[in-house]
């Protein structure tokens, strides 16, 4: 079991891999509630994987996407994993640019204090500008 396979694929170390040189600005845009669809979890996985490639990665939370990073999520009753603690791991992955649209918070009666990670709250207009400065915007 396993031994041969792990031997063949083991030993890959991102730390030792040279970046290919080009660093692009990636923004992952989260617009959906954390549960009920797979989008939020998939986005988070893509973001974590992208961290291995030394790119300039940021996350934006808009609309119901702001609920992804809200404190005090309890998922027992819907029998799915509460993956919200993983957003707190992003810092360790050197992903520190988290942007939240102010209008989306306001419409839901939320403030920055309701969020479980440090974010930069910005207006819709500022968010639009931020998006226009990206090389790649991927929406979930």
């Amino acid at each position, binding site marked *: 079991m396993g031994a041969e*396979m*792990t031997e063949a694929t083991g030993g890959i*170390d991102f730390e030792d891999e040279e970046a290919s040189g080009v660093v692009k600005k990636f923004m992952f845009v989260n617009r959906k509630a954390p549960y009920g669809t797979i989008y939020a979890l998939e986005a988070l*996985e893509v973001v974590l994987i992208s*961290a291995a490639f030394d790119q300039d990665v940021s996350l934006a939370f808009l609309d119901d996407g702001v609920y992804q990073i809200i404190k005090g999520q309890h998922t027992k009753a819907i029998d799915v994993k509460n993956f919200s603690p993983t957003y707190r*791991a992003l810092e*360790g*992955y050197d992903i520190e640019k988290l942007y939240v649209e102010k209008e989306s918070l306001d419409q839901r009666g939320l403030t920055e204090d309701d969020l479980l990670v440090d974010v930069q709250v910005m207006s819709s207009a500022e968010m639009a500008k931020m998006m226009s400065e990206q090389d790649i915007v991927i929406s979930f």
Partner: protein
Amino acid sequence: MPTIEVGGKNYETDEEGYLINLGEWNEEVGAYLAIEEKVEMTPSHWEVVNFLREYYNDYQIAPAIRVLTKAIGKKLGAEKGNSKYLYELFPYGPAKQACKIAGLPKPTGCI
């Protein structure tokens, strides 16, 4: 689904031998998985395994190797926070082998 038998109890694993229910993990299961990985466990090995379990408990993911080395360096000292140290303990890939022994899923971003 494959199972392993430890101390008279069956535990489900995936195709690659990772434990399905990490809540079922105990040191005995860890020791069994280590034997399957041909890793001879020392206190240094357990230190990393326990670190991983704590990390998982806090963040609900198994860390990528780069993140693991950095976090270990912070918590256990710079002389341990490097891939050389971790590869000496877990020659076939620290994230992979240590995670498996710790009963965690395979790390995200581990290719």
